[in-house]
């Protein structure tokens, strides 16, 4: 099956700065794609080029086999939701949602029916006479979503639609967006700098940095198998351990004087050379655990109670690592300065 959204060698230069550097990707119909990265990584510029608000310096964009690179935004049949809601202040909710339909020349009767359908979809039936300023931010953004999908666009573009909202609304609205997207089966491109957001609702994620794609994959692939150091540190929490190679052939390293055998070492690793190892806080266990072949001892330097999870900071020596353990209501949490034995599986130690 041919890709529904195809971006080929897309490059954008502003003056002397190249913000998007020959980016390529292809996605299938109905996929929820997130462009994830820090501010200035080029993710928004890519979205704006797909929308037609920016013209690529070179490269092409195809939707459903049609090259849309040279089309104006109003010829692309796309829907878009903006960070600042961008509802038309002079129009009520019904007219906002029906704006694209009116422009397309849909008769008033059909338009009203479609607006009602959209209001039901976003859970705001009976709100058509309200004005944007009479609604909460979450409601306004849902109306903006309805406005974007009412004309049945080929694709939905979401430009950090949750960034202006409070934390609680952010979570509930992102779940709602995902549910609506799955219901309609509409191909969606979502721009965010929030890795938790991207991990929770995407089919696939494009992690970007400095105008380049660092990694493209499903959320679990991005998290469990980060392709680069940038992805590993940007997505999720990561411990970095400074170690020394003891015997490159035997794959042994020393972590603060404790000898550990790792599953793999880079070919360039030489004996006595320093090496950085990384691991996620949740792969560590307090005490032994089945399948964990590495045991380390240290001292608890800090305890952070997060409710269902307790995050411990464990000093191994020079290295201090974070460890997440579930809260056990029957026992008191570990105390600071207590000695502790932790274990991990050598396969979870990443050498980047």
């Amino acid at each position, binding site marked *: 099956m041919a890709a529904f959204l195809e971006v080929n060698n897309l490059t954008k230069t502003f003056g002397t700065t190249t913000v998007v550097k020959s980016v390529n990707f292809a996605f299938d119909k109905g996929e929820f794609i997130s462009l994830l990265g820090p501010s200035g990584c080029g993710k928004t510029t890519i979205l704006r080029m797909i*929308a*037609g*608000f920016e013209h690529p310096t070179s490269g092409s964009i195809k939707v459903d086999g049609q090259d849309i690179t040279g089309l*104006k*935004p*109003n010829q*692309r*049949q*796309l*829907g*878009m939701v*903006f960070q*600042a*809601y*961008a*509802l*038309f*202040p*002079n129009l009520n909710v019904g007219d906002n949602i029906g*704006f*694209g339909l009116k*422009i*397309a020349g849909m008769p008033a009767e059909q338009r009203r029916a479609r607006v009602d359908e959209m209001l039901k979809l976003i859970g705001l039936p009976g709100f058509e006479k309200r*004005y*944007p*300023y009479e*609604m*909460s*931010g*979450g409601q*306004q953004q849902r109306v*903006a979503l309805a*406005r*974007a999908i009412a*004309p049945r666009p080929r694709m939905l*573009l979401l430009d950090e639609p949750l960034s*202006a*909202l*409070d934390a609680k*609304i952010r979570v509930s609205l992102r779940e709602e967006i995902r549910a609506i997207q799955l219901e309609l089966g509409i191909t969606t491109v979502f721009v965010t700098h929030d890795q938790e957001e991207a991990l929770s609702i995407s089919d696939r994620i494009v992690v970007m940095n400095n105008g380049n794609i660092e990694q493209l994959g499903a959320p679990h692939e991005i998290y469990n198998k980060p392709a680069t150091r940038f992805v590993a540190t940007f997505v999720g929490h990561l411990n970095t351990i400074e170690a020394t190679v003891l015997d490159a052939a035997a794959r042994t390293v020393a972590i603060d004087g404790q000898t550990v055998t790792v599953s793999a070492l880079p070919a360039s690793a030489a004996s006595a050379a320093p090496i950085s190892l990384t691991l996620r806080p949740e792969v560590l266990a307090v005490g032994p655990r089945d399948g964990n072949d590495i045991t380390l001892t240290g001292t608890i330097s800090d305890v952070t109670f997060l409710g269902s999870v307790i995050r411990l900071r464990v000093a191994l020596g020079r290295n201090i690592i974070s460890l997440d353990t579930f809260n056990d209501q029957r026992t008191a949490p570990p105390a600071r300065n207590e000695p502790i034995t932790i274990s991990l599986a050598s396969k979870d130690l990443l050498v980047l």
Partner: protein
Amino acid sequence: MKPNKFWAWLVFALGAAYFLVPLLATFIFSLRMRRNELSFDAYVSVFSDPRFYGTFGYSLAIGAVTIVVGVLVVVPAVYFVRLRMPWLRPVMEFVTLLPLIIPALVLVYGYIRLYNSSSIIPFTSSAFGTDILLTGAYVTLALPYMYRAVDNGMRTIDIGTLTEAAQIAGANQLQIIGQIILPNILVAILSGAFLTFAIVIGEFTIASLLNRPAFGPYLVGIGTNKAYEPAALAIISFIITWGAMGMINVLGRFAPRTSARTD
């Protein structure tokens, strides 16, 4: 804190007196047409003069056309400069201030020189042509006010994002300006319109030198021939101007409201 308030009130009272005393004196003088008693005779005299209605109606019509032309020139200009060429804004600011710096007399002499009956575009050779010239001059005179009113109106809405939201929904430039931008800055435009109206109604120099039957030259003509009627006319034009200003304040309450709520 009390002494502070006293001085504040004193300054306010002095300032108010500076404006109100001459106005009050003019008003009282306008009531003294009849010997030894106060009457509205001067006003009756003004309102029974057909030239009052003729000139006022003429200025009203020219004012309306000036407003329409001003809006058609200024709104798209401000919109595109804010949206596409923000670097041009200082130039716009400067250009729109020029009518305040260059005397109207210079402007009208320039017009007469350029568009006299023996020129290539002889606007002054017909009454209609001269009306067009007069309207053009008034659009220029009102430019500083119209530009600032419209510019302020566009500042209060995020025209960039609203334009993009309308574009992606399928709207073209004309639909965006007509259905989204204009309605959202309507109150600002009306403010500019009332300021324009207030300028056009009292303008003398250009109307007089182009020899058009406008309200300004009529006011001056009455002033040189009669005693009490000019005072009555001054009060009437004050009421018209203040009425226009009052309308701007009233309209401000109907400005579109946006809300960047996070809940």
